[in-house]
């Protein structure tokens, strides 16, 4: 086994896990507090990437572009919540799935209309586009390290926000008992808007950081949205801690599985069979993991309290 490759892939898995966490944290909060299944969360991720691409073009700087894209995402998310999603909070999950599915269709076409059908690239500044030498002489792309660093920082800030501040207290209270929070005179609508805006910023952040390493294209949010759902379901819907643990597990298994499964399978069956079966099985790994976990713990690893 190639240890340097394993280490690199572990870092890649960690980096994917971080992106997944940014998406999952917002999605799980929105579900936990508003009881809303938002399929359009992946579209916010896409919007983040497109905003960043445009602003980077205007300002000639990825950093400035990214800094401008974040408030744009928040604004976009808040408008979306006010216009379309607000009426869905009290509806059945089926209605929510359908309505937000309609939103995905709309937003994909909207992006195609504005930015055209061809994908965009986000150019990185010089200092982020190179690679950094880590321990044992491993070279690793600097930007991926930045993603990991930003992600850990955001996770930490989110932890502080949720567990140490008054807003965080309301968020936690909202997640465990909505009626009681509004009965106590808290402006629950404002809280909803804040939570949705927060989720939109996190999703946009994930999108704009994914932009430079993947292509910015229509439908980029859908693949990752489904994986994000796997994450929040494995972690236990509504739990940020669960989302964090599950995101790292899923990121790791997906990335490392893809590069090492042929070798691992090769131990048990002939190389030919391993090479043909491995691509299909490695794409399925996280779904198998999810099915296994739900078969044992139907409410995920960290089930929400009081549910």
């Amino acid at each position: 086994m190639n240890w340097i490759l394993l280490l690199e892939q572990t870092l890649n898995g960690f980096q994917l896990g971080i992106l997944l966490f940014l998406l999952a944290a917002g999605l799980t909060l929105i579900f936990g507090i508003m009881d809303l299944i938002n399929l359009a969360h992946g579209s916010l991720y896409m919007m983040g990437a497109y905003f960043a691409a445009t602003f980077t073009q205007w300002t000639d700087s990825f950093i400035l572009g990214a800094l401008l894209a974040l408030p744009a995402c928040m604004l976009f998310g808040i408008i979306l919540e006010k216009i379309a999603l607000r009426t869905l909070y009290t509806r059945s999950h089926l209605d929510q799935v359908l309505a937000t599915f309609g939103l995905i269709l709309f937003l994909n076409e909207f992006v195609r209309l504005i930015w055209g059908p061809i994908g965009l690239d986000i150019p990185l500044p010089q200092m982020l586009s190179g690679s950094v030498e880590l321990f044992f002489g491993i070279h690793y792309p600097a930007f991926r390290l930045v993603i990991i660093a930003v992600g850990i920082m955001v996770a930490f800030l989110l932890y502080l926000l949720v567990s140490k501040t008054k807003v965080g207290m309301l968020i936690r209270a909202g997640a465990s008992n909505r009626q009681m929070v509004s009965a106590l005179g808290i402006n629950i609508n404002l809280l909803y808007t804040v939570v949705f805006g927060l989720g939109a910023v996190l999703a946009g952040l994930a999108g704009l950081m994914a932009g430079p390493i993947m292509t910015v294209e229509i439908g980029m949010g859908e693949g990752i949205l489904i994986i994000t759902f796997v994450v929040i379901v494995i972690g236990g819907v509504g739990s940020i801690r669960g989302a964090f643990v599950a995101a790292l597990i899923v990121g790791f298994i997906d990335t490392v599985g893809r590069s090492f499964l042929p070798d691992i399978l090769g131990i048990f069956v002939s190389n030919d069979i391993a090479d043909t079966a491995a691509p299909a099985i490695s794409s399925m790994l996280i779904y198998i993991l999810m099915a296994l976990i739900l078969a044992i713990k139907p409410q995920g690893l960290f089930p929400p309290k009081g549910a």
Partner: protein
Amino acid sequence: MRNTPRIKIITLLMLSLGAIPLIADSIDEPFYTVLFSRMLILSIGAVSLNLILGFGGMVSFGHAVYLGIGSYVVGIGTFHAFEDGVEWMGNGFIHILVAIAVSALAGLIIGAISLRTHGVYFIMITLAFAQMFYFIAVGTEKYGGDDGLSLYMRSDFAGLLDLSNDNSLYYLNFAFLLASLYLSHRLTNSRFGMAIRGTKSNEERMKSIGFPVFRYRLVAFVIAGIICGIAGVLSANQTDFVNPSVMHWTRSGDLIIMIVLGGIGTLFGPVIGAVAFLLLEELLSGITEYWQLIFGPMLLLIVIFARGGIDGMLVALDRWWLRYSVKKNVEDN
């Protein structure tokens, strides 16, 4: 109530569906036969999903998986019949039997695990299973992987039916649609169907009365899978092409849209919905390339405002008609 406008409209719809190939032939537009053939096939899929989603309240977000299974049974069968000369693998009866067996098995496995969960977990785990099957298809290079398989022949019904004729295929689809509607009607009005409907409105109560809820649901889940698997067999014959996108998760979403658009938990709702969905797609994409820009918000508005779907509107029409005719009777006397 007999002969209300709603019943008349639905009868008219079913009769017109039966006459489409004749009309299309007489105006020399065979395209319509193909378009409506697709509607029939998706109607069968929607009717089957409606059994568990509409009547049983199980929001399965992976129902297109059975369309995929049925399609791949035909794809793989005709592939071997054509390439390797294994004649029995091109036989349509065998396609249907195998599709039923595989769909039932898949439904049993998916259902046995998924039905242990509830709410959003159920939605997501059915989606996850559909993704697994999708990736199996994408990863199977032998049968075309991502690109899929072209069918060089359609299912062979041993001289009974010649499916290379689009009209024969249309009436085969129509027959299966009528059969699935009849089955749906009988099932939902049977003791079994009542129990399933009961679990939708109050699962705990059904359990305490002594119904084995899990087993009932699982059986319904498997039946729905089987019917949709047959729709998959028809679908592959219709398109002469099989690829993983038949079971893409958006396909499962489309099936749900059809049900809600037509009228959830009603007998003919899924058929109305499938016809309306494809007609809308056809019309809107004729107006603008960006048709989903209109269709997306429309979906949102339908969910928010028109809760009973099109069938719900017809029921409202009936109520208005009833009031109108009573008033007219009173005035006339």
